[in-house]
């Protein structure tokens, strides 16, 4: 059995198949009790983004259509928002029922609580 110790990027296939042209950046932080995923989404509304969990895989996606009517007005572009889908395989110690998400100033933060480590001391009689 492979033990994974942090959320693992699982979205390679989506991007290899060229289904999505935009891939938001993600930071993963770990503390003793939690993992925190910070997803870089400037310009998105929280209603445009879906976070789902299925069979231990967390998926963050948006199918928002970005209009390109004012294409002729752009003089310079480094950042082009598009529909995306990123998935993460979660470690076994994440409590799936306790996953929460919040959006603030263009960053979507997903908090994953870890199951406390089982400890028991056996006293020698």
């Amino acid at each position, binding site marked *: 059995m492979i033990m994974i110790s942090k959320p693992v990027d699982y979205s390679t296939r989506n991007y290899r198949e060229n289904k999505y042209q935009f891939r938001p950046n993600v930071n993963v*932080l770990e503390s003793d009790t939690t993992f925190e995923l910070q997803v870089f989404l400037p*310009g998105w509304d929280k209603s445009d983004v879906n976070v789902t969990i299925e069979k231990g895989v967390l998926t963050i996606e948006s199918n928002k259509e970005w209009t390109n009517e004012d294409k002729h007005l752009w*003089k310079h572009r480094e*950042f082009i928002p598009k529909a995306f889908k990123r998935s993460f395989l979660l470690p076994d110690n994440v409590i799936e029922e306790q996953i929460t998400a919040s959006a603030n100033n*263009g*960053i979507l933060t997903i908090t994953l609580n870890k199951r406390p480590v089982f400890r028991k001391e056996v006293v020698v009689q």
Partner: protein
Amino acid sequence: MNLIKASSFPTIGVSSFSSMIDELFNRSLSDFGATGNLFSHPSVNIKETDNSFELELAAPGLDKEDFKINLEQDVLNISVEKQQLKEEEDKNYRTKEFSYAAFKRSFQLPQNVNVEGINANYDKGILTLTLPKKEQVVKAVRQIEIN
């Protein structure tokens, strides 16, 4: 957010709206040095309409008070240095694909920008600067009589 006119501010690698010399030249020294890294360089989009230029800088996770925007001659500087975020970076990052705790980008403005009318707004992680154009003096067509 105030627009401050800086007296002397070192500008390294200025990019011009018209020439768009970018990326490598546009990075400030701190991006390469010890304090920054290549992630700490927010993306910029520039749009031009008949009456204005609009500059969008994608820098999520900040507060509007964090931005310093100043103008020196015709060079517009946008910078952020956030100590608190820097300390946060000492936290246990397992994967890190972005960080905007400190950066600086500079732009050379075209001559037709009305610098007094520049304004800035921060929403959903995007800093939008509106740079109105000076009203062009439209020269009336003058008919020249042929004698």
